[in-house]
């Protein structure tokens, strides 16, 4: 179906899987050295929130849970905390996108920011249930805000690049 939603059509599963794999590898290698006042870029959350905003709650939940499962497998002692956090974040971002224009960069940027903070909050709540100190969540709150800022900046760059590429390919 073509029309107004052509630009923001949800991505296909192979490209989503590739994006998630690349994001996780980048996070565990190069991006781990980039910090802004304690906060670091969580590229996976950006992709999950972005995809959920365009594809809806159920697909967002599934994509988030699968990304979280991969992160849990590569992390230490997190159990299924990332899976739960990213899955619920995907679902909430998908539900939140119902109330905004799905092709608005500002709306999706806001969803990415909320998704980053929400994902961290759910993650640390789950970890505290698993025996980690309760204070870690509040200690990480200010880091989440900086991570959200980095996430929004990255999303705007990625969105602008993808829009430019689509427009260029479309004009040929």
């Amino acid at each position, binding site marked *: 179906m073509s029309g107004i939603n052509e630009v923001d059509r949800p991505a296909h599963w192979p490209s989503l899987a590739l994006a998630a794999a690349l994001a*996780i*590898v*980048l*996070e*565990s*290698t*190069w991006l*781990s*050295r980039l910090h802004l006042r*304690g906060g*670091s870029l*969580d590229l*996976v959350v950006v992709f999950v929130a972005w995809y959920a905003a365009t594809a809806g709650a*159920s697909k967002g939940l*599934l994509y988030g*849970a*699968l990304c979280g*499962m*991969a*992160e*849990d*497998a*590569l*992390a*230490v*002692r*997190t*159990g*299924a905390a*990332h*899976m*739960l956090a990213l*899955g619920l974040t995907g679902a909430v971002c998908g539900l939140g996108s119902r109330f905004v224009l799905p092709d608005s960069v500002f709306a999706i940027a806001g969803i990415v920011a909320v998704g980053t903070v929400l994902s961290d909050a759910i*993650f*640390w709540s789950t*970890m505290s249930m*698993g025996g*980690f*100190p309760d204070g*870690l969540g509040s*200690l*990480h709150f200010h880091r989440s805000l900086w991570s959200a800022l980095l996430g929004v900046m990255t999303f705007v760059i990625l969105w602008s690049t993808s829009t430019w590429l689509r427009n260029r390919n479309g004009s040929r």
Partner: protein
Amino acid sequence: MVPIYTSRGEGKLLAVIGVVILLALVALLQIDAARKGQESLLSQILTTVAVPVESTFTAVGSGLRDGASNVANLPRLASENAQLRDEVRTLRAQDAVLREAASAAPDALRFAARAATLDQAIPATVIGYDPTNALDTITINRGSHSGVVRDAGVVDAGGVVGRVESVGPFAAKVLLITDYTSSIPAVVQQGRWWGIVRGSQTRAQMTYISQDAVLKPGMRVVTGQGRVFPPGLLIGHITSVVRGDASLYQVAKIEPAANFGRLSHVLVLPKPGSSTK
């Protein structure tokens, strides 16, 4: 009005239920493995698959960073090299004198055992970090196939780095001493005051130090007798001391000796007691 269910819609519903059950099953297996302190099968598979990819990314990143750094520092390197050569000559002479002194000391045997422990260490390269930065962990490119075991200590040229938290066949994950959940027994070298070094995200702090201890910035903090590290390995230096009048203990902020910003090569130590007889 009664809704009409088609076979396509039913198939989709069953697929969703199947995926949810599968995810829940994986989550339960992951939680069970985390509680037992083991690596789940999924973790082992994904970590093993990720090792070559992470190694490549890390090698490319390190190459680019080192190349840029070398070009920028080229003028300074020549003079620094000459200075370091002089320093090495002096240190070698001092080392010979100290080895002679150690061989004559009463606890020479203990000293020799510690040296042997370091000789048996397994060299490893850091290939990755925690993907979400939630916990301060690193991934190294040596696993159970190379003899790495859980709870083994990890050091670099500067000092203590952390301990092995989980081991896969070809990789292991190390919890850094800067992580909030890390705690190791430690001693302030001047005065032999005992305490526990805990992580504080970017640095570390030594807690439970007696109020009688006279602490000053710059004092060396080394590992105490524990089950992970042999005693006497450098953890870091005290940068400041918090001493509340009403508190039972002092807290010393510590700058770790290991350079966590540029961690690349580490040594995995054999567990104390498992090395030499």
